[in-house]
């Protein structure tokens, strides 16, 4: 990178590419050629910067200038003003939402101040398609160290000492898992990377694969050496074409450079990786289901034991870790277990990546030390709730997790505290909700998801999730009774205790956590037939305030069922028996005379 004086980093994550960031790269490159600067300024398409809310992001180095919401047409101004004349383009700089002042250096942004990037260390920094940039950031150094200076047992010891726990959801100690696989005797073993990120609203693994694919390749090879495997598989969602393409390129380049393939770095250790496509089944995140899917079968889970570390892919010992877990491996081996243990909490060392989304100002991908509180994540990094609304709940752990409330905001986040509070870490999805979100509807949303994704193998999950979802449909459509609430609870407990795999056992969590934290909201639905958040259309009533109505007749004209009557220039009224609660009148009334209750 040395011959260039300046670098322009353009985000090439999925969100920014959707907003034409590739065209920005092209326009900047063309403009640099016009000014004969292509030898001095390098344009790099990187992985995700994390600040997806204000994408596409363009960062100029060495001065760390952070441009947001850049359009392809802005390329000329960035080149001619900033690069040629040295004047920053003020209108594209990020403005602090509090002080409204432009922030020139991204280091001073609240969004980045409390973050600590370990798994995302290279995302938004290197060109994921260039192996040399990864090597320049100490890439493949850990692999070299492991192969030449350490025995497999020493590698496992180091990972065990680091206290790293599986980032896919369960939080099982990674070193221990590796040790089990190491101890299983077999002529053949496999390393599997679980990249079947199925949790809706989570995009951590995708961003790591898109932004830093080599770290996964390196970590899988290290794992292969540690457990005694010569073959690795990446099980990845077919819906992630960009991640697949970059990973494939990384694997090819690594092989060419001798970091993958036969006799890696001239040693006796050989390791090959192959990509296997998932086909859209949430349950395949469960490791036994994932293995069956890799064998070309329906992705149904089987009872453990036997654990995959004894009998997995084709009945051979198989070590399954998720993407983020692997992304931590090389740096732990480089900097040592003691360094890693100093970060985070005692029982959950290190950091965690979260996909922050929902009703929050700074939607994006963040990484914080374990033990950071929800308040810091939502209000400091996330910039608080959108449109000045009131915080209501945060959902963690996806369809297996639960909703946490105001009273939990000062909870330090780690694997165990979230479980204690009735939710879970999951893979790291974090959806923020405000006062307009109806909690029984949120529970219904998740149960419809698990109902659809239940593989059907065991009865408690197949039928239980369907019954839960039916009950929630009744409650949110005004047909619920108080007996339904008891039934929800009873059934949830039964499913939790009897379902075969993690999907079923955790499926009732969204119901139980919302029932426990927002019981009064459920009661309002079943007793008073009202939705306090005003979201359940069946429970709403639209009414025209005769004081405010000017009789303009707009509402009567837009009403699709002619439920509104009234004379011109006189207050109108809605016939509740005919009204279908579509909200058309509410949206169109020029004097806001229509109330929604």
């Amino acid at each position: 990178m040395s011959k260039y004086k300046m670098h322009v980093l353009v985000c090439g994550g999925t969100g920014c590419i959707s907003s034409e960031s590739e065209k920005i790269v092209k326009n900047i490159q063309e403009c640099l050629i016009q000014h004969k600067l292509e030898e001095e300024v390098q344009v790099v398409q990187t992985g995700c910067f994390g600040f997806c809310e204000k994408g596409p992001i363009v960062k100029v180095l060495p001065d760390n200038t952070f441009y947001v919401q850049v359009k392809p047409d802005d390329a000329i101004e960035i080149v001619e003003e900033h690069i040629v004349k040295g004047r920053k383009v003020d209108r594209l700089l990020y403005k602090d939402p509090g002080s409204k002042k432009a922030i020139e250096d991204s280091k001073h942004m609240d969004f980045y101040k409390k973050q600590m990037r370990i798994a995302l260390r290279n995302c938004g920094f290197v060109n994921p398609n260039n192996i040399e940039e990864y090597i320049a950031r100490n890439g493949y150094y850990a692999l070299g160290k492991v192969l030449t200076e350490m025995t497999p047992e020493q590698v496992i010891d180091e990972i065990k000492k680091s206290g790293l726990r599986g980032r896919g959801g369960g939080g099982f100690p990674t070193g221990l898992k590796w040790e089990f696989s190491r101890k299983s005797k077999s002529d053949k073993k496999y390393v599997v990377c679980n990249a079947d990120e199925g949790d809706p609203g989570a995009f951590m693994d995708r961003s790591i694969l898109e932004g830093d694919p080599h770290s996964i390749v390196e970590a899988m090879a290290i794992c292969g050496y540690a457990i005694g495997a010569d073959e690795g598989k990446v099980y990845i969602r077919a819906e992630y074409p960009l991640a697949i393409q970059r990973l494939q390129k990384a694997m090819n380049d690594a092989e060419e450079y001798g970091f993958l393939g036969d006799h890696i770095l001239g040693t006796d250790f050989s390791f090959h990786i192959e990509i296997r496509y998932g086909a859209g089944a949430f349950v395949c995140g469960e490791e036994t289901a994932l293995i069956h899917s890799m064998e070309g079968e329906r992705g149904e889970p089987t009872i453990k034991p036997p654990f995959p570390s004894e009998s997995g892919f084709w009945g051979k010992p198989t070590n399954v870790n998720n993407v983020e877990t692997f992304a931590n491996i090389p740096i732990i081996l480089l900097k040592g277990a003691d360094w890693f243990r100093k970060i985070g909490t005692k029982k959950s060392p290190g950091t965690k990546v979260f996909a922050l989304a929902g009703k929050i100002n700074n939607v994006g991908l963040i990484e914080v030390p374990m033990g950071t509180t929800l308040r810091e994540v939502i209000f400091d990094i996330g910039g608080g709730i959108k449109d000045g609304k009131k915080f209501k709940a945060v959902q963690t752990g996806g369809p297996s997790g639960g909703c946490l409330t105001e009273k939990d905001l000062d909870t330090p986040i780690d694997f165990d505290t979230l479980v204690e509070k009735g939710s879970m870490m999951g893979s790291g999805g974090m959806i923020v909700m405000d006062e307009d979100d109806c909690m029984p509807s949120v529970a219904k949303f998740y149960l419809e998801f698990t109902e659809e994704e239940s593989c059907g193998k065991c009865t408690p999950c197949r039928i239980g999730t369907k019954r839960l979802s039916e009950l929630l449909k009744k409650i949110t459509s005004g047909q619920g009774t108080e007996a339904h609430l008891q039934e929800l609870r009873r059934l949830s407990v039964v499913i939790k205790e009897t379902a075969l795999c993690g999907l079923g056992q955790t499926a009732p969590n969204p119901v139980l956590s919302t029932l426990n934290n927002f019981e009064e909201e459920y009661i309002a639905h079943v007793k008073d037939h009202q939705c306090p958040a005003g979201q359940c259309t069946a429970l709403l009533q639209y009414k025209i305030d005769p004081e405010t109505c000017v009789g303009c007749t707009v509402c009567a004209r837009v009403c699709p069922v002619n439920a509104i009557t009234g004379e011109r220039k006189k207050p109108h009224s809605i016939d509740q028996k005919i009204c279908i609660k579509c909200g058309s009148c509410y949206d169109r009334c020029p004097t806001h005379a229509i109330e929604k209750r």
Partner: protein
Amino acid sequence: MSASSISDIKLDQEKLHQLDDFIDGMSNQKGELISILHKAQEIFGYLPKELQQHIAKKLNIPVSKVYGVVSFYSFFNMEPKGEHPISVCMGTACYVRGAEKVLNEFKKQLNLEVGETTPDGKFSLLSLRCVGACGLAPVVMVGEKVYGHVTPEMVKEIIKEYK
């Protein structure tokens, strides 16, 4: 599958050869059913009954096994998609930012339910789970093109682009 959709159709011979070559080129066909189905859907666009029968015969496995796998995974379609498949993201991030209203507007405008295709074969309506562009929520994809921050008001305009 409705009765009409499983009426016999004739598969394109050239495409079949392409698929057979892919299958023959595999060193070990054991466990490759999902890869083969991915390829078949890539070539044909969808996986009709006849194609599933063909694959079963070729691999010497029961059709029920092929159908079992096809129907298990949401990525595989047994019906052809419209010329412009419209997918509304119903991931949690999009959901809380109003994706359901957007989906309802598409249903209304196109007079379709999710999973259906317009009679002229132009549009089909689908819902999908998270494209990972949560910063743009709610997200709609038409073919490969991504639309971000979609509101019900924008729906008409989006459809118009493809008419």
